């Protein structure tokens, strides 16, 4: 960017217009008073929890380099994911429980050839999950949520969205989410009855409204829900941001409800327009809760933002939706969020994040490692010349 762009009058005028529209939107999104009163009504406090017995809680996170190497029409993607399981402990707060798997590292090679690309991606999904793609599709309840009638597994598999090899954004999203959910699935399989397993994010199913196309991780997400139900494990997705219109004044409602300026330790279940008859979100706004899930907003600590917790609606409504159980769940989350490294956020997710994240140096080293291996296998090093760097774009 040229150094004087931000000084130009035209640019400043455009920014001024944009911010005016943003401010107007805030006013427009402000809920009427009766809606505000309803929000105040659904907010529930829970106590600061410093003692906890028999809590087992796990967290997963993923990352990767998308792509780590690109040459010709081919791309190599690296995916990492990690999961960690902890038990409450009177001395350490949480003590890690050993699991049979460590950090998952997966390399995926995609080319411009459609058949190769699809086969490679599905093979990666299979390796990550430890199940074949067909198994996941068959045992997932995703199709039931679509209400699209009986569709064969083969048909669903054929209609899975496989992005082009160069579409790093979408390929990366699919690989990373699949890897995260695969780690969650492994944790669910090993976690004891009543344990909590959390992923970073939401339980959104982006293509659930479509008749045919779907993403593999949507099936996998619901497969995790199915396995968690069968195992008696609470499976949820915790997002650090709630993604709701900022004009809802939720924090203000919490302050009203709790009578404190620094309102913390509260939660509210997001009303569902279909179930509860009302919702604070606009009709054309984000669908919260997503299909097959229920959504809570929760504030664990005043220094951390309001977070969003999505849970499998099926399991929760049938087995766990009593106020006492809601209180217990959020007390457990509060307890798990008292680690000094990430106060106000459940530590197991943070621990998984730390294990799966890649530093800049690690990304560079990984790239060199992949290229060295390829050269060792007989490929020319010049193939992997970084075009952006060679042309002064990096």
């Amino acid at each position: 960017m040229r150094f004087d762009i931000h000084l130009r009058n035209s640019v400043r005028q455009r920014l001024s217009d944009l911010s005016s529209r943003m401010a107007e939107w805030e006013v427009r999104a402000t809920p009427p008073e009766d809606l505000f009163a309803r929000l105040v009504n659904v907010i529930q406090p829970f106590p600061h929890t410093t003692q906890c017995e028999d809590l087992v809680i796990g967290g997963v996170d993923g990352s990767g380099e998308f792509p780590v190497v690109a040459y010709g029409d081919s791309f190599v993607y690296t995916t990492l994911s990690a999961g960690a399981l902890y038990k409450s402990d009177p001395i350490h707060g949480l003590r890690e429980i050993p699991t049979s798997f460590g950090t998952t590292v997966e390399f995926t090679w995609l080319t411009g050839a459609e058949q190769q690309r699809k086969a490679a991606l599905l093979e990666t999904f299979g390796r990550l999950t430890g199940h074949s793609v067909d198994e996941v599709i068959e045992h997932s309840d995703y199709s039931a949520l679509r209400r699209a009638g009986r569709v064969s597994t083969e048909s669903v598999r054929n209609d899975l969205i496989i992005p082009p090899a160069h579409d790093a954004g979408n390929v990366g999203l699919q690989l990373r989410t699949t890897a995260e959910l695969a780690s969650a699935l492994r944790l669910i399989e090993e976690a004891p009855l009543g344990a909590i397993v959390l992923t970073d994010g939401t339980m959104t199913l982006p293509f659930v409204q479509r008749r045919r196309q779907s993403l593999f991780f949507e099936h996998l997400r619901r497969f995790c829900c199915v396995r968690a139900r069968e195992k008696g494990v609470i499976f949820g997705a915790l997002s650090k941001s709630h993604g709701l219109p900022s004009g809802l004044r939720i924090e203000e409602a919490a302050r009203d409800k709790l009578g404190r300026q620094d309102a913390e330790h509260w939660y509210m279940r997001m009303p569902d327009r279909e179930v509860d008859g009302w919702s604070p979100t606009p009709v054309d706004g984000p669908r919260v809760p997503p299909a097959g899930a229920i959504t809570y907003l929760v504030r664990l600590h005043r220094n951390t933002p309001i977070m969003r917790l999505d849970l499998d609606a099926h399991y929760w409504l049938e087995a766990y939706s009593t106020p006492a159980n809601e209180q217990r769940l959020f007390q457990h989350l509060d307890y798990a969020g008292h680690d000094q490294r990430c106060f106000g956020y459940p530590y197991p997710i943070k621990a998984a994040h730390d294990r799966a994240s890649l530093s800049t140096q690690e990304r560079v080293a990984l790239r060199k490692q992949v290229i060295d291996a390829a050269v060792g296998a007989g490929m020319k090093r010049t193939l992997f010349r970084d075009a952006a760097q060679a042309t002064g774009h990096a």
Partner: protein
Amino acid sequence: MATIEQIVRSLEPRFGVLAESSTSQLTVVAGNGDVAIGDLFLLPCRRGLRPRFYVFRATEYANILNRTIDMGDVARNKLTMPDSYFAEDLAEEQLVELRGMVLGYAEYDDSSDSWSFNRPRRLPQHLTDVYRVDPDHPESGEAVRELLRTQLGDRGLVVGHLLAGERPLMSVPVRLPVQALSHHIGVFGRTGCGKSNLIMVLLDGVLRHNRQIRSSYSECKASVFAIDPHDEFRTWHAGTGGADGIRGIVASYSEEEIANHVSPFFYLTGRDALDGPFEARVRLSRADVTPDDLACILDFSEQQIAFARQLFSRYGERWIGRLLAGEINNDDEAGTEFLPGTIAAVERRLGFMTHGNTRLVSRFDPDLGLGYESILPDILCALECGRVLVVDTTLLGELEQFLLNTVVARALFALRRALRLADSPTPARGDTRGLRRRRSEWPSRPTGSCRRPSGASQR
């Protein structure tokens, strides 16, 4: 000789891994543990043709976290967030980073089947495993001794044991070649850092050395003339219930050992009251002092030193007595005439040796019946025979201490020079040992300054 693999096995488990490294500093990342500045580490390495072990001492430790978390944030959370905790992970999250200096490296020599120690001119390879030398494990001490054998030596004075952190490796004695005592050695440090202790260990080492070589005669005996301004080496910590000093060591000797290594004394003092056997009153005679001795410890102008030398050439050993008695006559013989101011200035400088002002220097004038009263010949003979002499100088002034040092050193070096110049050193050496016998040629009055216990061998 142990191989690199055998030594590594004796050092296990691994302590950490080498991170950044340069010839001036190594950084090691290690698991969380109780560590101390000064800990000793070994880094096995195969960079180069021969196996090597780098020896490295920690000079700095820091607590770090495994991930890129700001320790300040964690500490703030711990301080300000009630009931927070630090979860225990299976993978070590709390680590220790240490920095330190490479002391050198031991390299295995196939031809001699031994390890030779070298200066730190090379670096270990990347990410080398690091092993800590644990004083509780004798095997690790043995490994260090083998690797440092060429550096620490197996003969000479034991001056202590190699320190690994806060504790010594009892199987790794550190030795000083006896010849090193004739070189300049400086011991410097802050109060309480162990300077006196090192000297005490050195004195003890000399005594042990002299006892050991008695049977083999394979090496020279060593001598130390220790000026002790705090009078601490004789009894060391015995007064407060601790270890005894030279007195205690000597008390454990047999009669024969005392005759060979202690007699006639090990302790000289300015006090008249002597507390035990083999102690003596320290005393020099004016006859022992030359103008050059005084020029070493005092400021003299050229005229003043010339005047002193003229007196010395004219009156010999009586020169100080004549000057201090005021019996100097410029005109009595041919010679340079000196200004009264010069004469007075030299008189003032020698004032600390006037009768009544000194506990060290005795008068000497055979014409007046003042014989030679000095322990210098005994000191020289003792030092020639291999002795440790501790001199308590608490009652001596600064100038007296300097004079004692200077006279003893000058006389000793003059003897040594004479020995080297002699055509046949052996008879000459016999002459120096007979120095004390010539003492009887001087008229002397009995001093009783050297008390001997009954049964001790007589000279």
